[in-house]
């Protein structure tokens, strides 16, 4: 009995410790976001040209270099969703609604989500590992010792670059997926492209474009913030680098799915 009580008390202690650890991490994350905002506000005017350069490099890596993989994925998903949906739509006699289905499922939901997942996998891992390596190799300390704010120089261009990139990639994904849907409806449903596009036009509005952009920007900003935070808080041992990457990617994925669900719930209300 005594052993059981001890085990139970030990479990509660462990649970409490874990909850406290998570609370501390959350607080640390909030402080990091505050530091990023402060760093953005106090960015020296003379440093902007260097920051633009870093921002451009980030957009090139995150958005431009990811375009082929996003195109392939979007084409497949657009085609597959429409092919599957067509089989069901024929049963219920609503084939003409395929365009609207594509607008709802792919344009609003899957486009930003898949763009964000690809960016977490490609750029999130790169951001976390680069910054963790910089921490381990003493680069961050050296910059701090010279009076440089590492957030201003290393983090801000990554955050803004990722926000722009995911917003652009989400729209790019949607455009390619729509094309994939067009090919699939033509092939499977023998629906004339004009009818498909008309159905799509009826199912979409300007608000959708704004929504996709806002979602993409938020996913990008969140992913880069989380992965930067995970990278910069790495302990100064090489073993900390993969740990930081794993932590950053897992939290960023949870963030992306949670925010996506929140958007859907809020818009459904």
């Amino acid at each position, binding site marked *: 009995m005594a052993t059981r009580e001890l085990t139970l008390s030990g479990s509660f202690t462990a649970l409490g410790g874990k909850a406290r650890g998570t609370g501390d991490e959350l607080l640390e994350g909030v402080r990091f976001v505050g530091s990023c905002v402060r760093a953005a506000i106090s960015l020296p005017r003379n440093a902007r040209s260097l920051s633009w350069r870093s921002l451009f490099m980030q957009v090139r890596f995150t958005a431009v270099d990811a375009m082929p993989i996003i195109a392939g994925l979007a084409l497949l998903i657009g085609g597959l969703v429409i092919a599957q949906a067509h089989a069901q739509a024929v049963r219920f006699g609503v084939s003409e609604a395929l365009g609207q289905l594509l607008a709802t499922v792919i344009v609003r939901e899957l486009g930003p989500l898949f763009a964000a997942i690809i960016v977490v996998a490609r750029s999130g891992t790169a951001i976390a590992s680069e910054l963790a390596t910089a921490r381990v190799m003493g680069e961050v300390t050296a910059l701090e010792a010279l*009076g440089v704010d590492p957030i201003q120089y290393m983090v801000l261009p990554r955050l803004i670059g990722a926000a722009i990139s995911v917003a652009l990639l989400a729209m790019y994904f949607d455009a390619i997926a729509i094309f994939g849907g067009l090919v699939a409806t033509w092939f499977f449903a023998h629906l004339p492209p004009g009818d498909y596009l008309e159905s799509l036009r009826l199912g979409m509005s300007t608000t959708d474009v704004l929504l996709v952009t806002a979602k993409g920007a938020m996913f990008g900003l969140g992913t880069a913030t989380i992965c930067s935070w995970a990278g910069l808080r790495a302990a100064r041992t090489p073993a900390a680098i993969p740990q930081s990457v794993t932590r950053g990617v897992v939290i960023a994925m949870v963030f992306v799915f949670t925010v996506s669900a929140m958007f859907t719930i809020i818009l459904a209300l």
Partner: protein
Amino acid sequence: MNDVIEFDHVQGERAELKWERPVSFTMPRGALHLIRTRSTWSSPLLRLCLGFSEPSGGRVRVLGHEPGTLGRHAVRDFRRGMGCALEPDGLVANLTLRMNLTVPLVFASGLTTAEASERTDQILDIMHLTIWENSRPASMPLEVRQTAALARALSSRPALVLLENPLASVDTRETRRLLSLCRAQCESLLIATHRKDGILHEFADAVWEWDDDGFRVAA
């Protein structure tokens, strides 16, 4: 206030008490002091000077400030008056040597990109590093990396430079030339090293020995 560094019965970093005997010394403005000690002690000593940590006892004053007590922004401003080359050298791996020198000049010293670039050209030239300007740290030999770290420390013409085991892989003749340059480029220099060779001693105004027996003037 003629002393740029004052250690008054300092007893190690707050987080990790490491020294059995407290450390006291002063370094006047315009001097080059050399502290000969083990690597595990030189890093915490320089970290205290830079305000990365607070002493667990005693008082540290550098350039008229107590660095460990300064706030986040104040400590950054304080560090901007200094140059340093610590171990590891901390050159940013994905930047060329030129950018490694330019970035701190722009972000910390407040120079425009054009002014920073001009100053970078000067320092690359006097340190004989121009041929490496477009190389990244990983492709540079160790002695070039050490010279580059020193160049970065000197580039903002700081009032005080802190060096940890500087130029350990650089040959004697070049070390002598670079130390002469250091003396010309900055006012005061504190070097912490575990080396016992004579070149650093030639340039030092005072040499301190720091081991288990305490902190004292070297024989």
